[in-house]
């Protein structure tokens, strides 16, 4: 048995034992206040379980009965839209969750939870598993706790990009894996092409990264945005570059900028940019960028860069630029 584990366990037991012994030294006390606080944490856990149950049943009405539209701290309409979008785009199979802790801010309560969601994407008909760590804020309204804020990985509403932009990140946000069922050929073994067949002992030797119980192609917890140019169209006075962005990392990206630097008729280089909303893991998105005064001189002297302002930390920063 690992020595560190034993030491940590002993420390915890000593701590718990100390406080238990201290507590049982007495017999009289007023339970009322304590019970009130205990009930708050219990109430919040109970409301969260009801939310999960309604989500698994795809019962939007039952779910929204547990959300406060009046005190919601993000955009309530976008959230309801995102919830219906989940039920329209996904067939929710199973959500497992483990409540970490409830931290109180007087009456309001933050609930932290780790979760694993299995669902079928009705667009691609792929079986997917998404894992995450989220924070939910509950407030008491007329004696009942209702959901008023969501943060971290998107357990609810993750199918709507607008809602992803509303979700603030939290510390410890889990590695999110949206893993489509990968076809395995009979007889395949663990190697660089079949990392999913590797275990903890042979993952890294085959070029993989071991975490969350699987062998992954990229390090934990980072998106990887890559851009490719599909086409360039131009006239005598302007142009348009058509591009494709892919997030091949293990977590969704945040919103960022795509920018093109290109030659103009006057000789001075010009820049055009556009915002890019967050990309889910594995998502490929096409787009175009209009280039006013673009001067085509044979190609190769213009460049388009995803995450031009460096707001996304990626596992591979070298594939963010493409020339055209």
């Amino acid at each position, binding site marked *: 048995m690992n020595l560190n*584990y034993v030491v*940590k366990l002993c420390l915890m037991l000593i701590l718990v034992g100390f*406080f*238990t012994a*201290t*507590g049982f030294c*007495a*017999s*009289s*006390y*007023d339970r009322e*206040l*304590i019970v009130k*606080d*205990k009930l708050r944490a219990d109430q919040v856990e109970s409301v969260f379980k009801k939310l999960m149950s309604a989500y698994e049943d795809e019962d939007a*009405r039952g779910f929204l009965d547990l959300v406060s*539209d009046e005190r919601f701290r*993000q*955009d309530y*309409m976008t959230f309801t*839209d995102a919830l219906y979008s989940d039920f*329209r785009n996904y*067939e929710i*199979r*199973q959500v497992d969750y483990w409540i*970490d*802790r409830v*931290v*109180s*801010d007087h009456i*309001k309560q*933050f609930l932290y939870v*780790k979760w694993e969601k299995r669902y*079928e994407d*009705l667009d691609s*008909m792929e*079986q997917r*598993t998404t894992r995450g760590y989220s*924070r939910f804020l509950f407030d008491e309204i007329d004696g009942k706790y209702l959901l008023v*804020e969501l943060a971290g990985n998107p357990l609810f509403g993750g199918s709507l990009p607008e809602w992803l932009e509303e979700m*603030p990140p*939290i510390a*410890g*946000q889990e590695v999110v894996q949206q*893993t489509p*069922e*990968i076809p395995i*050929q009979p007889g395949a073994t663990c190697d660089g092409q079949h990392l*999913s*067949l590797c275990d903890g002992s042979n993952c890294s030797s085959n070029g993989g990264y071991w975490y969350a*119980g*699987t*062998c992954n192609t990229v390090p934990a917890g*980072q998106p990887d945005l890559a851009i490719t140019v599909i086409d360039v169209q131009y006239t005598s006075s302007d142009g348009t570059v058509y591009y494709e962005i892919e997030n091949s990392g293990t977590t969704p990206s945040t919103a960022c900028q795509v920018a093109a630097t290109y030659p103009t008729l006057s000789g001075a280089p010009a820049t055009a*940019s*556009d*915002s890019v909303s967050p990309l889910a893991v594995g998502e490929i998105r*096409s787009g175009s960028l*209009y280039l006013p005064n673009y001067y085509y001189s044979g190609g190769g002297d213009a460049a388009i860069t995803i995450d031009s302002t460096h*707001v996304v930390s990626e596992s591979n920063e070298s594939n963010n630029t493409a020339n055209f």
Partner: protein
Amino acid sequence: MSSVCKVLLFGSLVLLFLSPLALADETSGGQSWQIHGNSETIFGWHDVVGKSDGNLYEGTTGRQELSLHLSKQLTKGRTGLDLRGRATNDEQVDTSKAKLLLIHGYWQQDRINFEFGDVAGSYNPLVLSASVKGVKLNYRTGTRDHGMDYTFIGGLQKASWEELYDSRKDTSVDRYIGGLNGVWTHAPAQSIGATFSVIKDDSTTTDGTDPAKATTGGMDWKWRFNRYVSFKGETAYTHTDLNSEDNESADNAWGVRMRLLTKPLPRSVRSNFSYERLDPDYKPVVASASSDRERFENDTEWMINRQFRLRTTLKYSHDNLDNQLVDTLTTREGVLYLTYRPDWLKRSDLGLRAQFKTDNGRGSDKYMQVDEINFNFRPKSGWRYGVSYIFTNINDDSTSGEDQQINTLRGTIGWKKRFSEDRMIRTTVQLDGHLINRDSGDQQSYGGRIDFGYDAGNLWSTDLSAGTKNSYNDSSPDNTYVNYQFRANYHPGEDRSKAIRLTAERREYDSDDINSPDYQEHIVKLSYLFAF
């Protein structure tokens, strides 16, 4: 900062807390420490047949969770400590064998509250909404309905205590957060607050991510003028540098959210108007804000009479506030809800929902229309009927999108019979079907679920359910998912603070795709819970 330093710093703060605690003990009038809590012990077995890609966990696992609440009543307040810990070998739950999940100590008096450990601040959402490992001090003057309330919160933002006491598990950036909040309450539903926050990442711990730095200040208010009009909102100004190590200067930006709540006819009509504007550079790190957006909304509800209720929500939003983008993405959305609770059929309701949404700009042109009708009826006999139909029409002109029409029909029949005060039998049958027409190929899916349960008072209860879903697709292989579950609860001595729970489940996935193998999962969990 090294783990040792962090632990020492935290220890000092705890000592700072314990000193007044010791003094408080002298004046507590003989009240003594008490402890209560709960424990959950779980053993699980998970087996997967026919799938070997390592994506599903297998094996036998154990988990122990323990929550302790230690408290002591003081003469004019109370003090205490809450702890929560977990030990497990289940990697699906945690890769750590043992972990301290929560430490929360508090010392509360009439006007002063001091907390340490896991403390939280949910103030102006544009400025600070976070929990940290640190301290929190609150001082209050006046009464609950009239007076001032000051709070300081400060500490380190980490996902777990383990990252503090074990540097090998510390993979996230050290983010230091400090916040000040002051609220002046003039009367119930009339208050004005100010919040100030400072965030700084330790650049030596960022592990490849950019160290951020932000200073944000803002005001929030809530003012009820009379029974007809209230005004609430928040505004903030931030000075943020998302990468303090590059040569680019920090960004200054504004954010504002306002809501005008009106009740022109207080008992039958309410109409709320919202406005939000967040600058493109509004990124204060620990707040709920989506930058580069201007939004107008109206939410109106009209109780026409006892039977009818109508609600409409309208939204207009756009980005590109500084015109730096080549095009602007504009969204218009409207939803209408109508609820009818007929007098002639008590305990029933009919709901209609009609929604439209258009997105224009930057190659994302899209139109969506959703119409829904649902009906529920729960007579006193114990029967329960429900039916709903949703039609969704999507015209997606974006590069990767396609037009599609989705029809969803769902029906529910249930029966619940109470034999005595605490004995009950219940069953539910649910059927649903989807039909999706789209350019790339149609898709039909049908499913159902049956559930049967029995509650035998405080002693035991059981529940058995089975569900299936069959998908038939033009453009991809057909598949079937079946799920069976059995759950049982037993409360020794009819004491509901103790429970032995057994859950057994089988999940089957069959696909016509030769590259996607069929598989079956078996899951069994046995747990013992008790509160003390």
